[in-house]
């Protein structure tokens, strides 16, 4: 679909810009990185939504691109959460080992790239988190969530699992960037 192709293109561009900002003189610009991350999230949401609606309805319905965004609750949320935990998108893909790792400390927005470019293995480029071997790994390791999580969980609850282990949060008040918890990594000084 046109919208999902555009969303994908926008995401790829955002990743490229985020990556090249590392090499920029003067260090990365917080404002610009923030805007790029926002664009990437909305593009990603739309992409997921269009993929989801693609699966459910075989015929392409570009009209409904917007509405799935607003209705992501319940089951799609569950799917999104479980795949985000292992660092993968909604679409069923073989799990890749080094694909998640959100860092808490000084993470670079770059890490979003791993989840977003899952299908474009050839476009992945130099965005592997392995490159940041110096940085501490995030709370969620690369294993799927059936393995014991090292961090103590306060409650058995999906929401808490998200919060404690993935450091996602909700972007609210916006019809496009929906209530789906979104991974956001901003470089912290």
């Amino acid at each position: 679909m046109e919208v999902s192709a555009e969303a994908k293109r926008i995401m790829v561009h955002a990743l490229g810009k985020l990556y090249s900002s590392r090499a920029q003189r003067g260090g990365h610009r917080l404002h610009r990185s923030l805007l790029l991350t926002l664009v990437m999230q909305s593009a990603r949401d739309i992409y997921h939504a269009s993929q989801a609606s693609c699966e459910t309805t075989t015929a392409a319905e570009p009209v409904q691109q917007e509405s799935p965004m607003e209705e992501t609750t319940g089951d799609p949320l569950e799917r999104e959460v479980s795949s985000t935990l292992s660092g993968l998108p909604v679409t069923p893909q073989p799990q890749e080992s080094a694909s998640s790792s959100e860092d808490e400390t000084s993470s670079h927005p770059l890490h979003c790239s791993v989840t977003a470019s899952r299908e474009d293995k050839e476009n992945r480029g130099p965005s592997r988190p392995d490159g940041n071997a110096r940085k501490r790994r995030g709370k969620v390791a690369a294993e799927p969530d059936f393995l014991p999580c090292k961090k103590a969980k306060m409650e058995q609850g999906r929401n808490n699992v998200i919060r404690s282990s993935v450091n996602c949060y909700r972007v609210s008040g916006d019809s496009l960037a929906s209530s789906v918890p979104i991974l956001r990594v901003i470089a912290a000084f």
Partner: protein
Amino acid sequence: MDEEIDTRKINNSFLRDHNYATEADIISTVEFNPTGELLATGDKGGRVVVFQREQESKNQPHRRGEYNVYSTFQSHEPEFDYLKSLEIEEKINKIRWLPQQNAAYFLLSTNDKTVKLWKISERDKRPEGYNLKDEDGRIRDPATITALRVPVLQPMDLMVEATPRRVFSNAHTYHINSISVSNDYETYMSTDDLRINLWNLEITNQSFNIVDIKPANMEELTEVITAAEFHPNQCNTFIYSSSKGSIRLCDMRASALCDNHSKFFEEPEDPSNRSFFSEIISSISDVKFSHSGRYLMTRDYLTVKVWDLNMESKPLETYQVHDYLRSKLCSLYENDCIFDKFECVWNGSDSVIMTGSYNNFFRMFDRNTKRDVTLEASRENSKPRAILKPRKVCVGGKRRKDEISVDSLDFSKKILHTAWHPSENIIAVAATNNLYIFQDKVN
């Protein structure tokens, strides 16, 4: 509006070819001083060039006070932050003049991390006839000294010297985007992406933090501060704009830390205009109080808005700068132009506002007559003393003879920085590495 042109190309690097624009020459800020006698520009190479208006003379009445170079100095040098392994750019982000209190002029200039107070003073006399040293400064042989003489001040060629008087450093983790001098002329504030600090002009080793929007967890960051300014008349009031398109007005009398705003200006988003890039184009790139202090003006990517300080729900006036770009946002995003930060300025009487665009176009909007004009700053199209011709962008359909189509616009030629003389109709427009000064026509 008819405008007479007095064009100058400013290139202060004598070894560089005039046709080749080096990146260091790109002008990054332009500012008139409070009387309009001086005009300062800062560039990416960390230099400041100050122009002074000629005294109007009876001999040449048609040269109505042209601006000539008065002083050039290197304000900031590139630095290296060893802790973060990051280079600190020497580019001058902002210059703000202090009101003149004696014969010398003072200005604040800032790069990403450090603010400096510069004193610009004239020297037109020097002492001559020292007793113990000769004119070259060499110590005289005591045996040759047979008489006593006292040095006398002799006139010399005018020399303008700039000296750094204060250096305000190590107060900002993030990149400084604005500085603004308070009406009390004793304090000023410096703003970075997440914090605003208040300084006393005399004290460099400490500053007060008055706004801090850094979240405890950086991953929860949703907005940054993009610009801030003190109220022109009330030293306790200031505003700051955010990347989300909102403006907050704060009163420093309310509390030491002004995280809670007194007023919050935001226009609800038009859902029909929603796109991938809505957040980017709603980010405010510049905010300016009117000279009267009754209004404030904001610039986002496609519009300029004038707000009444007493109405927070929506702007008083909205002007479309280049709405024909709305359908091109995707390509502008790909070539990075969507991140360009345009500034906006008021004229002295707050009746006209001006801002830049692409293709070296700049726009003026008359708030009273609701007329607007697009003008171009380029040497090819203008000769000194010629009248500037209004330009028009053709948005679709048949293109008329003098119109330019959207696809022919040169997006590498952008006018981000402009300034308007505080009382007269003289404007300074920075087009990449060239500075254009336009004056109103004399009858």
